[in-house]
């Protein structure tokens, strides 16, 4: 009986969004009378920071500072339609819809500015600080504040735009079954090092080293947040958490945090995160969906590390001491 060490590796592709009856999200953008911009969505921020990302995307597209944008996700009954925040689709689907809406709003904004400046709208550009300038003659300019006032009170224009992003449903080819379930994939690779006590079946994760390829990181600090939390969640699902430990038998499922095994701050492995950015072809400013992807590769990596350590294949999650001991016993017989 001994504590045995093992190392496992796993790599995954993870789709962004889903392929049910088509995967749409809509967005509306409009300016206030003083040149701030509202993004109206039914997409919901679960704490991952979607409102911040949508504000950045809208600001980048219109050409204003991010703090000039307010994202309103107040009511899924009355807002533009969104399939929801799941399937790692929020940034990709809602972001693309916001870009389209913001482009249309920007065009109206430039048309109103063109009337005020008596130039052609195609000769105008934004400085990103809240002003519209004539290309090549930046001394001729107008603030977006004044453009919005003009639109509202003088020109009778609505500086607004509609955005619609739809990934159409993909049907499998009858002969081959080939289809395109997703247009955009994030990728990850994890190496996990574990110690397995072959007397008690207990697994200790020593280190987790992750590489995540997530398209463009639109907000690098928030991406890091997701990935650090996700890596831990993957370990948690590999070793601890389940609602139905003897599935399909429903007995012994945890009903509260006394019975549901959720690791705490004392159960952390040394974790490393590396981000690779390869902008996606159809993502908003190259983004993909890193959300769920980042919590997946740790599970097969830990299972492989357990195999490396004690030579048993555990194919049911979580990898509990009981499952390891049963497998070791079966192997010995």
């Amino acid at each position, binding site marked *: 009986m001994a504590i045995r060490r093992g190392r496992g590796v796993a790599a995954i592709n993870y789709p962004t969004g889903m392929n049910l009856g088509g995967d749409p999200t809509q967005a509306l953008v409009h300016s206030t009378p003083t040149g701030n911009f509202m993004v109206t969505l039914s997409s919901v921020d679960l704490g991952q920071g979607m409102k911040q990302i949508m504000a950045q995307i809208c600001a980048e597209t219109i050409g204003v500072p991010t703090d000039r944008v307010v994202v309103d996700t107040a009511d899924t009954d009355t807002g533009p339609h969104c399939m929801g925040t799941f399937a790692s689709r929020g940034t990709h689907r809602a972001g693309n819809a916001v870009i389209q809406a913001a482009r249309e709003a920007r065009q109206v904004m430039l048309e109103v500015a063109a009337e005020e400046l008596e130039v052609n709208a195609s000769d105008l550009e934004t400085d990103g600080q809240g002003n519209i300038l004539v290309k090549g003659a930046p001394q001729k300019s107008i603030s977006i504040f004044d453009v919005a006032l003009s639109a509202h009170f003088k020109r009778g224009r609505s500086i607004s735009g509609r955005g619609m992003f739809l990934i159409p449903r993909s049907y499998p080819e009858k002969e081959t079954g080939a289809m395109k379930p997703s247009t955009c994939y994030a990728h990850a690779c994890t190496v996990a090092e574990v110690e397995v006590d072959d007397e008690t079946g207990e697994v200790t994760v020593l280190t987790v080293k992750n590489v995540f390829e997530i398209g463009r990181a639109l907000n690098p600090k928030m991406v890091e*947040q997701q990935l*650090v*939390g996700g890596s*831990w*969640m993957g370990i948690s699902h590999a070793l601890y958490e389940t609602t139905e430990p003897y599935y399909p038998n429903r007995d012994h499922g945890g009903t509260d*945090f*006394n019975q549901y095994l959720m690791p*705490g*701050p004392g159960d952390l492995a040394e974790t490393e995160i590396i981000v690779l950015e390869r902008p996606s072809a159809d993502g908003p400013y190259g983004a993909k969906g890193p959300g769920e992807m980042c919590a997946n590769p740790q599970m097969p990596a830990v299972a492989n590390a357990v195999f490396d350590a004690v030579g048993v294949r555990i194919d049911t999650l979580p990898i509990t001491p009981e499952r390891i001991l049963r497998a070791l016993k079966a192997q010995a017989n």
Partner: protein
Amino acid sequence: MAKVPVQFTLNGSEKAEFIDSGTTLLNALRDKIGDTSPKGGCHQGTCGACSVIIDGELRLSCLMLAETCNGATITTTSGLAVGGVLHPLQRAFLDTFATQCGFCTPGMIMAAKVLLDHTPNPSREDVVEALSGNICRCTGYEPIIRAVLAAARANPQNAA
């Protein structure tokens, strides 16, 4: 049901309420007094989201009866900022991105405050121990541990 009077100091101001006997401190704070910073996660003392500080000690407000808090001095996360200036722990949680959905954050900050009040210059192990009664779904804890250590470092008394 008979109402009972309770009187305590909450974040520096006197509070006096008539409550239903048997009301938890958590429900009294949230529903009667309107301080919603303590969160009700499990209502059985296993998640730590409802943590508050009573007379200097970290307590689970979901397991305390409000009527047992007569005369007590209670601190919640909403009482930490003074004159619009965030408490160093709040500042550190923001600066180190230690919060995502935010539901565990007030309890984490309460647990961390009691730690730093008693141990101004804690080790990483001290922080892990202090937070071990609080669970978090989003962050993987590491950013929270870093935030508490950063808040301790920001304390001028800990300047090396």
